[in-house]
């Protein structure tokens, strides 16, 4: 069959070449005829001269589907020989997952390596490089143990990303996948890698939408809560408001789809967000002290905004002095020294362990009017 194909391809090539040669020769002849006709001042010969076959000028080659197919075939003309040569030399073609799936078998990786570097995919992954789900569960356990031991974020992040990659190319949406994303999200939260956390959160949303169940009961609620807190913390003022609203609506819709109301962690997150928006620093502090699981990492993001608001409110509401001892917990500081340092950085006047409100108002106004001095004192 290959021989017949080659023969027909050869024939087609010959025919095409013949056509070109004919066109070229006849075009040449036509040009010569025209030139001589002009010289003889005779009426110009028709563009298709009698001796040449019809349509004999070089027509512009139309790049239609047929021509493209022809060129593609020509490009692949040595593929047969190469394949034969490779098989003879014993170098096997690496089978990819896509090919395995096309063959009908359930596609699972064949690699046996417990750890793997993370590399972005530039081509279809081969079966030998991908780990099967069973092995991935063990990999996950290993990464968790190493993280607890070493707290090496670079290593953990790279390993988890490679596990995620293996799961994605095998289209796994089991609780294992959910567990991997949750683990990576928690590790990123602890390390403060917000970009990675957002990626994992988005991945979790995708998995939930595809119908995956949560690994530990209450973890869906937990990550909804983190999402809401992050939406409340990020972005400029106006963008943030609608992003928070959209996130809340999404969380509510997902809770409704799951059939349960908001769980305890989500309720806590909602109360925290409400307290921060109302500027109620007492309530916010009380809730932060009772933050479940890893919510305190997210609440730390909200603290600077609340601190600024509290400071502005104190400056406008109080008339005389306020002791630093009462102020420090309001501003979210654990020690008086840290509070005093921050206040002075804002331009406030702190004397004898008290905040002098009147003088501070002027100081803050002056500090705001001269922004280039801001970096002078430590924050």
């Amino acid at each position, binding site marked *: 069959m290959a021989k017949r194909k080659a023969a027909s391809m050869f024939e087609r090539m010959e025919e095409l070449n013949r056509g070109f040669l004919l066109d070229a020769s006849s075009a040449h002849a036509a040009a010569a005829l025209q030139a001589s006709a002009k010289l003889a001042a005779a009426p110009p010969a028709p563009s298709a001269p009698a001796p040449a076959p019809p349509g004999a000028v070089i027509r512009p080659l139309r790049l239609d589907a047929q021509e493209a197919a022809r060129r593609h075939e020509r490009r692949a003309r040595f593929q047969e020989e190469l394949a034969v040569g490779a098989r003879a030399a014993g170098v096997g073609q690496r089978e990819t997952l896509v090919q395995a799936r096309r063959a009908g078998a359930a596609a699972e990786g064949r690699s046996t390596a417990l750890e793997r570097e993370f590399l972005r995919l530039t081509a279809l992954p081969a079966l030998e490089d991908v780990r099967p789900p069973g092995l991935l569960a063990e990999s996950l356990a290993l990464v968790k143990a190493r993280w607890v031991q070493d707290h090496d974020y670079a290593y953990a992040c790279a390993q988890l990303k490679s596990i995620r990659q293996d799961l994605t190319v095998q289209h796994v949406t089991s609780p294992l996948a959910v567990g991997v994303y949750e683990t990576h999200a928690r590790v990123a939260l602890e390390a403060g890698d917000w970009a990675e956390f957002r990626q994992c959160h988005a991945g979790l949303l995708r998995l939930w939408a595809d119908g995956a169940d949560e690994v530990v009961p209450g973890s869906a609620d937990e990550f909804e809560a983190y999402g809401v807190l992050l939406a409340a913390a990020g972005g400029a003022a106006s963008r943030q408001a609608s992003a928070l609203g*959209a996130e*809340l609506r999404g969380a509510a819709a997902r809770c409704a789809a799951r059939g349960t109301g*908001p769980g305890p962690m989500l309720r806590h997150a909602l109360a925290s967000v*409400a307290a921060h928006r*109302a500027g*109620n620093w007492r309530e916010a502090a*009380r809730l932060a002290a009772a933050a479940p699981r890893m919510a305190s990492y997210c609440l730390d993001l909200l603290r600077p905004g609340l601190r600024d608001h509290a400071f502005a409110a104190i400056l406008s*509401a109080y008339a005389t002095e306020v002791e630093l001892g*009462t102020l420090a917990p309001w501003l979210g500081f654990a020690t008086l020294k840290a509070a005093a340092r921050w206040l002075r950085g804002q331009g406030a006047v702190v004397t004898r362990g008290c905040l002098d409100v009147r003088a501070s108002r002027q100081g803050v106004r002056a500090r705001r009017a001269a922004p280039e001095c801001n970096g002078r004192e430590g924050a």
Partner: protein
Amino acid sequence: MSSIGGLVHSINDCINRRNSARLRLLLQVNNSTTQEAVFAARNANPRWDPVAAANRLPEGWAEFLALFWACIVALQEGKRGEAYDKLVAALQPFIKARSVEGRDVFVFREDSEDWVVPLMHSMVHNLRSVAQAADQELEAAGKPATRLGDCGDQLRKCFAVALQAPGNQGKRLAALDVVNVSIKTYFKLNTLRLCKNLTRTVVSRQFAPFELFPVSQRVTYKFYVGRLAVFDENFQEARESLEYALQHCHRGAVRNKAKILKYLVPVQLLLGRFPSAALVQQYQLQQYQPLMQAMRTGDMRLFDTTMDVQQFTFIQEGTYLLLEKLRLAVLRRLLKQVHAVHAVAEPGKATQIPLDWVLAALRCQTAAAPQQEEEMTMDEVECVCANLIYRKYVRGYISHKNKVMVVAKSEPFPPLASISFADG
């Protein structure tokens, strides 16, 4: 008439006479005439092919209507996903030009008159409803629902064509309806940031003047703009848009008015303007009644319990963050009452309210609340009072040493309407 021949005949008639009112009805997916005709044709011949029946129609229309009837066939067979795909395929000849050997083909794009505008309206409404039905089917089967997202993309194409208005500037009048349907789709998908582009285009100069569009579309658009403004915390614009919608809404459209009021009432409450009892009764606004009561009497406990119980509902409607802002108004009312009582008890020191009194007031309100494990302390009171002064709800200052709040002699509690909307 319930035969396909009769249907073809009447469509031909409409095209020739440019009768858009009748053709618009015939192009709706749930139109009874169309449904009956297709059903009869399928009954007569189980392998009936719409392409053959549409042959007698002019070019371009034939292709479009063949696919449209194929969509109806799929709907009648219960295959909604397939119906949606056919409808998307029908959209292509509808909005694109197809020059057959140099001749122009008359459907939406090429027609030199603007009678095709109502037809575009039918098509976009069809798209959305069929997409939603297809998604319902997918969700019931447990598969991810993607059709509505695809519908958003298709609507964007329709919007581009309507904006470009090839052939006749009058076709620009199709645009607002496409915008409305798109926004409705984006609300369903919860991708609200995509609405911003649309609203920006509507106010830009390349859009037709707003007043040229029919009232119903203007009301719908202003309603959506108001809702988006509530999400963005842009309350001034929310109030203006929703009031416009309410004013121009048709007198008999009670359900629409109820929807508008559901979002307008919280915005007005921020201003301290309450709806009358008759309005509440007529438009089912009972969900806001406890909050209004709390605002009138300064009852923090009622406010907190209502927000707790209705939290979920308010979040889904998008009014939760807005209603949380009313908390400060309730506290203001409470402080006002303490001030009044104190003025009667100690007329000499009327403007100097001891913070202990405020603490007592707050304590006796939250005494019965089960979730308050710790008691209210002076810190809470000072926090509340500082916030009230900072937001200009109360005019005065706090003396920390004497634990007293000194309020202004005249107008210590300015009316809510005078305090600007712009809170941080």
